[in-house]
């Protein structure tokens, strides 16, 4: 499902990129820490609660993981409110693996290091603001406690 979303993102990104080059644009560097050096992180960016709930990301990245930290940069995006969700695809199969009872067995995380309660973190927990210019947002993956 996420793979489909990422493909969709690529299309959306290409189509919408020209319209984003506005005066109030921002860049953001999302820094990931606490990683096991293997596999990949699949990361999605959302710009509305509706999109977040519906899984309709406005951007996404597939980040190979070779060390304890990694980052993703997004440039020329409108200022405003965003949320990020990601999972660490340790075995590189493109899926968030779960145990037989449906509990994720690979690390996942949200912006603000928000944590869900018997489900994903809510938009209200994960939302953060991008201001004009350069922004940095840090997310600890796998062990925010």
């Amino acid at each position, binding site marked *: 499902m996420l793979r489909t979303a990422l493909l969709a993102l690529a299309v959306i990104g290409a189509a919408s990129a020209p319209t984003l080059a506005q005066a109030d644009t921002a860049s953001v560097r999302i820094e990931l820490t606490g990683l096991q050096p293997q596999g990949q992180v699949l990361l999605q960016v959302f710009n509305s609660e509706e999109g977040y709930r519906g899984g309709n990301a406005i951007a996404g990245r597939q980040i190979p993981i070779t060390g304890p930290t990694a980052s993703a940069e997004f440039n020329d995006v409108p200022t405003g409110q965003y949320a990020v969700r990601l999972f660490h695809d340790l075995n590189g199969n493109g899926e968030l*693996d779960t*145990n*037989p*009872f449906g*509990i994720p*067995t690979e690390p*996942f995380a949200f912006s603000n290091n928000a*944590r869900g*309660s018997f489900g994903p973190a809510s938009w209200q927990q994960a939302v953060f603001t991008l201001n004009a210019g350069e922004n940095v947002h840090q997310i600890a993956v796998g062990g925010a*406690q």
Partner: protein
Amino acid sequence: MNASRRELLAGAAAAGALAAAPAAFASENPWGLGVENAPAEGYAPATMRLVEGRAPRGLAGSLYRNGPGWFRYPSSSTGHWFDGDGFIQRFAIEDGRVRHSGKFADTLKRRVEMQRQQIIFPGFGTRGQPRAPVESPDDINAANTSVMMAGGELWALWEGGSPTRMNPDTLETIGIRPFRQDLASMPFTAHPKVEPNGRIWNIGAYGPRVIIWRLAADGTLEDAQVIDIGQASYLHDWAVTERYLIIPLQPWVHDRMTAPMVDGYTWHGDRPFRILVLDKNDYTNRRTYELPAMFYFHTGDAWEDSDGTIRFDLCASANAHFVTEQARSMIQTDSGETPSAELVLAVLHADGRAELQRSGQFGEFPQTDRRRQGLARDLVVIANDREVSTLSLMNWRTGASESYTFGPGQMVQEHLFVPKPGASAERDAWLVGVTLNTEARATELHVFDAARLSDGPVATWRSRYAAPLGFHGTWRSA
């Protein structure tokens, strides 16, 4: 007669189930002392004072016990006895002396709640804070129900998540390590069954499905399979014979998603108590038996006769009152009144009939000679701390029982069979366990000779403090 007594008797009569013994509690809460917080740092090893008899020669090793040991912060408390943080106690017997120590399992739940000095997480009977950060069952794993030795480690067991690995010498927590990455956070009950050859069987329940674990003696995974059991019965304990896995399906069923979890269960007194029997070598080869409605937490153990009859003991009560009411109220105020559990033997005949053999003995925490796990045996010991504090030893073969009644103010807990060195008969064992002496406000360790239970303890040691009540333990020989 108060409301709960009427309810109990009416329920028992209507269901045709077990008649329950009268259970009158003292007006003050006798459980109170047993559900006070243990010291946050635990108990450093301290010598217990011998107050009666003397240590039997040849008894050397450690009794490890686990149970909830932390219930309250200044502004909040757990909503249920079962949700206190796991506190592991060790009674080390060496050269006739006993040293007691204790330490909390260092769980995520405990770390977060201690840091914030309040109850955060939901539990079995605790609502927790709204939007408490829970991403997996192990985030709320209290590691508070039992302990077992595996691969040189001491495992603190819960039932909704993974074992918590500890150092048996220091009681330091090592942490949670999944048996296999794809099986992380799967449930693992506090009642694993260890075959005489060391192989470990366990289950873990999730709604109408269970995972069946098979581990080698060193605790490594041999096999894990998920099967459908048809109904989401509360499944705390189960039984294993040489050839079969026995999963009792009581009519206390989780049928609503609500918080806390205990409120999602419904007592269906009009439904049968089903017993699912699976072939160890082929889980699709199964039979189902039915008995009248009853509630249970614990089985003793199971065996099969040469004619195919399966027998297992359990402590059964008329309804689920203890878990739905008393185990909550005991944290707060008065303990109320609850039906005692009677020790019964479920007999599953090869022709599909099932019946109950009654013992007339009331109590809980049934224990058997673990060398005979899954094999024919005569004896089971239970602890009764309801009306009178009694330890009872039932012999199913002869129908006879004997008991020892403690003096007033003693809350008797689980007692384990500890074989005497070089002996093999069931009676050639000590019974080793704990009471909470509410008058002396102290924890006591007792050793009985299983062949002469009614003579009373051959040795009793007393600590200088009252440690929290526990649930279950294990014995590790020196």
